[in-house]
């Protein structure tokens, strides 16, 4: 492709973002949903695990407390009508904790405090309460002793502060928090990875759309993810319709030009015949203007046809080995009569061997257009140089001794239907340079327009 491609790309890219209404980034939205979800999950995880751990830890303390109460209660006996409790050392020993939790106990006989700490008796088996300024967990158990006279109800409450428990819970909380944070970090990293992978597919598609040449309307054939298939399908469909409609309009133009050209030729021959017969100068002038207009129309139609042909053939180049020197010699020979009519010398400098693998018809068309242009703008008694060069690369330049291109317009002259502002009375359609440019592009080259040091125009086809 030609070296001007990146500029075309940039232009397309700019157009795309400028013309599309953007509603937030899909990537950000995805990442936000995934990260937010992970955060919510991490927080839920923290509270669930912590709650569960608290429950288990509390259950552990309850078990020990009730074992302690049971072993105290177990030692209760009735001796001589008196309740005696010779409870084992282990009953309180089992309540030793790392945090040195305080221990309270109370032994009741039929609701009256027998020994231990007052104010602990509670009906429930387990309860938390505040005792002596500390939160304690209390376990209560009771038993009926059958004596000689009346049954005695003995109940034992054992209480313990919760320092070790809260220490354990804090440790678990810290661990779970670290775990949750780790989970969150990992999930965030994963979500970013997932997001960029997903968005990567879109980006690849975008790149391949962007990278296409302006004329390329062929369907996308690279595999795309299922979710993107409808989009690519629609895009392909759109492009094929666009392609079709472009072709239709080109066909239409070619057809129209063709249809117009034949009647124009007929009209011209009538006009010429009439011109020969008429002697009134006014009528002759009118007829001359008429023939001139017909020529212009005919030429425009011819160039439209040429352009359509170039466009068509550019997509399906029929390449063969072309000797540019032969081709140019032939062209120059054919155009010399026209040049002579204008007192212009057509000089061909084709000494270097110039072989090219290309479409001869297109190349001939392009070169003829360049020569046509030169002939049109060359003043009388001047020379047109056609020179073949092989260094640095194969190129053909056509230079005249006319006024040259206007510097401000040079960049757009090769666009369709653009004519120089100083084209004066010259007949032209504005397609000549376009055709030359398209042919050069189809052969991987380009058209360079410059002015010669002496002021004339110089058009170079560089391959």
């Amino acid at each position: 492709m030609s070296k001007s491609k990146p500029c075309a790309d940039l232009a397309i890219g700019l157009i795309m973002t400028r013309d599309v209404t953007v509603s937030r980034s899909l990537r950000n939205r995805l990442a936000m949903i995934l990260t937010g979800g992970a955060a919510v999950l991490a927080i839920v995880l923290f509270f669930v695990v912590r709650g569960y751990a608290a429950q288990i830890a509390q259950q552990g303390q309850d078990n020990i407390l009730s074992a302690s109460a049971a072993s105290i209660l177990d030692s209760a006996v009735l001796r001589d009508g008196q309740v005696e409790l010779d409870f084992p050392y282990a009953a309180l020993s089992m309540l030793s904790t790392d945090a040195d939790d305080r221990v309270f106990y109370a032994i009741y006989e039929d609701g009256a405090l027998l020994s231990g700490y007052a104010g602990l008796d509670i009906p429930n088996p387990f309860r938390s309460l505040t005792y002596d300024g500390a939160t304690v967990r209390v376990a209560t158990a009771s038993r009926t002793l059958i004596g000689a006279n009346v049954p005695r109800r003995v109940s034992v409450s054992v209480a313990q502060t919760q320092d070790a428990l809260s220490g354990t819970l804090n440790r678990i909380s810290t661990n779970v928090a670290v775990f949750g944070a780790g989970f969150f970090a990992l999930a965030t990293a994963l979500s970013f990875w997932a997001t960029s992978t997903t968005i990567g597919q879109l980006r690849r598609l975008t790149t391949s759309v962007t990278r296409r040449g302006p004329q390329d309307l062929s369907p996308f054939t690279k595999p795309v993810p299922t979710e993107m298939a409808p989009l690519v399908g629609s895009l392909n469909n759109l492009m094929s319709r666009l392609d079709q409609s472009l072709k239709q309009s080109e066909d239409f133009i070619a057809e129209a030009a063709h249809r117009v050209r034949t009647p124009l030729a007929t009209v011209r021959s009538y006009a010429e015949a009439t011109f020969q017969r008429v002697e009134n100068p006014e009528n002759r002038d009118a007829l001359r203007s008429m023939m001139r207009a017909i020529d212009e129309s005919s030429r425009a139609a011819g160039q439209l046809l040429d352009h359509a042909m170039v466009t068509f053939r550019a997509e399906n180049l029929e390449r063969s080995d072309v000797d540019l020197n032969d081709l140019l010699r032939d062209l120059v020979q054919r155009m010399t009569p026209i040049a002579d009519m204008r007192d212009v010398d057509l000089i061909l400098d084709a000494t270097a061997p110039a072989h090219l693998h290309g479409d001869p018809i297109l190349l001939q068309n392009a070169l003829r257009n360049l020569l046509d242009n030169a002939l049109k703008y060359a003043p009388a008694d001047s020379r047109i140089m056609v020179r073949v060069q092989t260094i640095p690369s194969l190129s053909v330049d056509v230079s005249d001794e006319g006024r040259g291109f206007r510097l401000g317009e040079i960049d757009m002259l090769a666009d369709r239907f653009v004519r120089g502002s100083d084209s004066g009375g010259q007949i032209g359609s504005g397609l000549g340079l376009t055709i030359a440019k398209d042919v050069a592009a189809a052969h991987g080259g380009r058209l360079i327009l410059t002015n010669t040091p002496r002021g004339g125009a110089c058009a170079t086809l560089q391959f």
Partner: protein
Amino acid sequence: MRYIAVLTLAFMPAFLFAQPWEDEQLFGSNTSQTLRILSSTDTSFFAPVIDSFIAARPNIAVQYLVTGTADLDDVFRQNPDQFDVVISSAMDLQLKLTNDGFARQLPSITHPDWAQWRSSLFAFTTEPAAIALNTAAFDGLPTPRTRQDLIQVLRENPDQFIGKIGTYDVRQSGLGYLFATQDARTSETFWRLMEVMGSLDAKLYCCSGDMIDDLIAGQILVAYNVLGSYALGRADTQDTLTVILPSDFPTTMMRSALVSKSASSPDLAEAFVSHLIALQSDGAHGVFPLPPLVGAQDTSARASISLEPALMTYLDTLKRQTFVREWEEAIIQE
């Protein structure tokens, strides 16, 4: 206002307690800030510690009050705001004081786990219960190494030992009760020894000091469960005593200190406890008469009685009634 309060507090003990202290001594002449220490340890053991404490703080005074372990517990429970530091050899009573919320937590003091409880109660000595003998009386008799040996010697020589045996009255002495209950918990031998001692009309003492005094004076020939530190302290100078640490099972306790939650000079009290445990742990033993806290490296040397809530077991009213009754049945044989 504050000045008046300090003054009032400083003079209140004098008005409040018509308490017959075993000993009462004021260290330092400056009475602007007085640290009041309630202790069961003889003044002579603590004087060097207090002197070294005051040496670095010339603007304070230390009032050192001595009473028996059980009495100490009563006095302190009734007036916890009258004392700053409580020092006792009765670990069980000290632990119960702490458990009942009388002690201030001192989280800035670092002490090994096994030698402290709730960062409130700090042990600073390791002291075994010993059998002290009158050396002359055992001339020609095998020296008992275990409780079983002692039982045998006493049984075989009732005429020589009748009325000449001494041990703690567990009803009066908190430390004696602690030793007795721990002995009983460990082995049945204790009960048999008590029965033998009862049959020999044992004398009962409130304190180690008295027991050793009588031993030296020849009033008694055997003292059981006397504090090793007290006995050894005198054995150095008196050839009359032989101190035996029974080899069947040792009963070892730790003397401990706590700072009253309602102390009027809590910072000073904390500084004192910190000073005390630093002295007792760093190996400067020769200087101070108190035995050191051992077991930091050697786990087996640690006290056999550990600081844990189970110490409160025998303080239970019912347990105590049962134990004292059984003890009385064994030792008091009318």
